[in-house]
């Protein structure tokens, strides 16, 4: 085992896949010589050459399109979109093509492309370096959507994603690349070294896509989240002293409904948390499924704590970012219902 931050864990995942399979290559803007603006592909160019750690022109639609063509020709491209906010120019290729190719061709063709994209705010990136557009991809059938919350999961899930024959959209909350972040930006930053999930095997392992993890067991209320917000939720639960069960979805689609339902049937209460804008965010889907499957167990309306329905502001980042305080408030509201 080694201490790794998320960047190192993701890097290790790609390194291992490239080493095992010459069909794996990484591609995207600045991912080659430079190793990526967040350094996730650092060293891969030097180790595997310019042909396998491919710098690419600034055209996300072209990057994803060529990755699809490569996938059809037997490769396993791992695409980096420099910021999730810049995935939109590729939406047509992702939604109309990548997601549907296997189905529309009756199973004849498929493209096992993994698309990595740093997402989320809290880095003073303003409206175009802070977004969490995961909901869109869960609406387009044919894509798996993943968002890890820690180095251990990130590596195991990324290897699984790369090896998966279905396309995977892999969002990486950039605020926690270097350390867990509990939402309190005034506290000194801590690295992953002191976090148990910063212990990462150096070798190959995978985590099954579609399986949530229970971060903390509890009986009073179920808290469902993913990515960065898992840490904020964990801190909020701790601070509040409430007996909450915290679920880290890890994969949004396919969704681990068993895990969710079992928990909510036990607690009868639930709060769903994400950083993305509220309206039609993925939280809405989670809430809908829970109220359908667990209706008779529910003792209170399911709460949502989310980003506001505004662009991510530069000056009011911490008023936008779902805070521990907002989570605690939602938990208490849920628990007050009788």
């Amino acid at each position, binding site marked *: 085992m080694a201490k790794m931050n998320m960047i190192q864990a993701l890097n290790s995942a790609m390194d291992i896949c490239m080493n095992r399979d010459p069909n794996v*290559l990484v591609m995207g803007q600045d991912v080659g010589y430079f190793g990526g603006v967040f350094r996730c592909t650092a060293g891969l160019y030097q180790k595997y050459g310019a*042909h396998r750690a491919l710098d*690419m*022109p600034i*055209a996300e*639609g*072209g990057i994803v*399109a*060529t*990755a*699809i*063509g*490569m*996938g*059809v*020709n*037997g*490769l396993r491209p791992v695409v980096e979109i420099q910021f999730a906010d810049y995935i939109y*120019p590729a939406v*047509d*290729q992702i939604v*109309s*093509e990548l997601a549907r*190719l*296997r*189905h*529309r*061709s*009756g*199973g*004849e*063709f*498929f493209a096992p492309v993994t698309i990595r994209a740093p997402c989320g705010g809290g880095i003073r990136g303003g409206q175009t370096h802070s977004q969490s557009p995961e909901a869109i991809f869960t609406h387009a*059938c*044919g894509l*798996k959507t993943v968002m890890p919350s820690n180095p251990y999961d990130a590596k195991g899930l990324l290897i699984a994603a790369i090896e*998966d*024959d*279905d396309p995977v959209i892999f969002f990486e909350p950039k605020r926690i690349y270097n350390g867990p972040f509990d939402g309190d930006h005034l506290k000194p930053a801590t690295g992953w070294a002191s976090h148990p999930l910063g212990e990462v095997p150096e070798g190959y392992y995978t985590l099954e896509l*579609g399986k949530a993890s229970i971060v903390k067991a509890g009986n009073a209320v179920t808290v469902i989240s993913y990515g960065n917000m898992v840490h904020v939720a964990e801190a909020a639960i701790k601070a509040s002293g409430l007996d909450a069960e915290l679920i880290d979805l890890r994969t949004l*689609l*396919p*969704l681990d*409904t068993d895990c969710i339902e079992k928990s909510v049937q036990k607690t009868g209460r639930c709060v769903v948390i994400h950083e993305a804008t509220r309206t039609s965010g993925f939280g809405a889907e989670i809430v809908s499924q829970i109220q359908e499957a667990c209706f008779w167990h529910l003792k209170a309306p399911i709460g949502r704590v989310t980003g506001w329905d505004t662009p991510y502001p530069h000056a009011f980042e911490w008023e936008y970012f779902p805070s521990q305080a907002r989570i605690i408030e939602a938990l208490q509201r849920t628990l007050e219902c009788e």
Partner: protein
Amino acid sequence: MMSSANKTIYQSKLFVPTASSRPETTPDFSHLKIPSPLASKRPQVLVDAADVTDLAYGLVRVLDDDHQAKGAWQPDLSPDKLRVGLRHMMHVRAYDRRMFNMQRQGKLSFYMKCTGEEAIAVAQGMALEDGDMLFPSYRQQGLLFVRKRPVVDMMCHCISNAKDNIKGRQMPVFYSWKEGNFFSLSGNLATQYSQAVGWAMASAYKGEKHIAVSWVGDGTTAAADVYHALVFASTYKAPVILNVVNNQWAISTPQTFANTGTTFAARSIGFSIVGIRVDGNDFLAVYAATQWAAERARKGGGATFIELYTYRTEGHSTSDNPDSYRGKNEAAYWPLGDPIERLKQHLICIDQWSEEQHLAQEKELKAAILADWKEAISHGSFAEGPHWPVETMFDDVFKDMPAHLRKQRDQVGA
């Protein structure tokens, strides 16, 4: 210029392109310059793009007005091969006719012909190797004939029956045929163009010799994916042939809304990609240019951009009536003729074909298509089935069906 209640009236200075003809005008193509087959030079395949920009403004032709093969681009094609080409084109036309009629009778939900453009897919298909990967648009059905896709299978796809290889998933003509290296068609225009470049990059990456070939229409050249294809193909010198089938129309919109005032072939100049403009109704010229481009790609010269200058003789699709937006019979004014007629006349001219043989072949193909149709509907019709079992709708969304889809499938009552 425009009337308005009590607001400013604008004197618009905006330039808006015009059409070759509209129902109220008489078609006139007399301004087109049709050079002689002797006018184009045929450079070595590994030439620098900057040195052959004239190819983008000329028109590569082989068949002259007397149906003789002439000039530097004459391909090395035996009469046998030419007859095969003629037969494929006639086969495609016979197929299109029947399918169109069957649509009119309600047996298909939709259909698209390639009438007048048969030389393109057929000659290009013949100039390629079987291992080359095709990323077509919807008017290259000729490729399937060249690659020997059973006609019955094509028909079964078009009527979404139980023998449709893509399981009733797509509208007619959106073929897919993996075995024949024919990529699944998309309804979204142009998306396959940049994918083809990725396929070609992978081929180069793997050190293989196969090339990718893709097609878009004149109208579709405006799409972002076409730009991506050009930028990426050029950046990585991908072994790919990028074709533009300029059939003058995009539904009701004339090519003037896409050609930006010059030839389509010229668009490649700014990407250091060789652009060649070819008489798309001249089977020999299309074959020759494609062969040239394929050799260039295989030798590491990178991409070639080919504009195939042709004409969409009929409507856009079965949903379209061209008389409502273009001059009556505009096709008759088209100066480059009909590709089948031209190859037929060439073969007759070199004593390798006759009117009688032609008529007999036409009859034979028509009968064959009818027989194929009968066999196809014996596997099920669009309206009545049998189709694939309904629950297969949930297959292939993912490789393995996740729980939520199994649940939905069960609700359909499978």
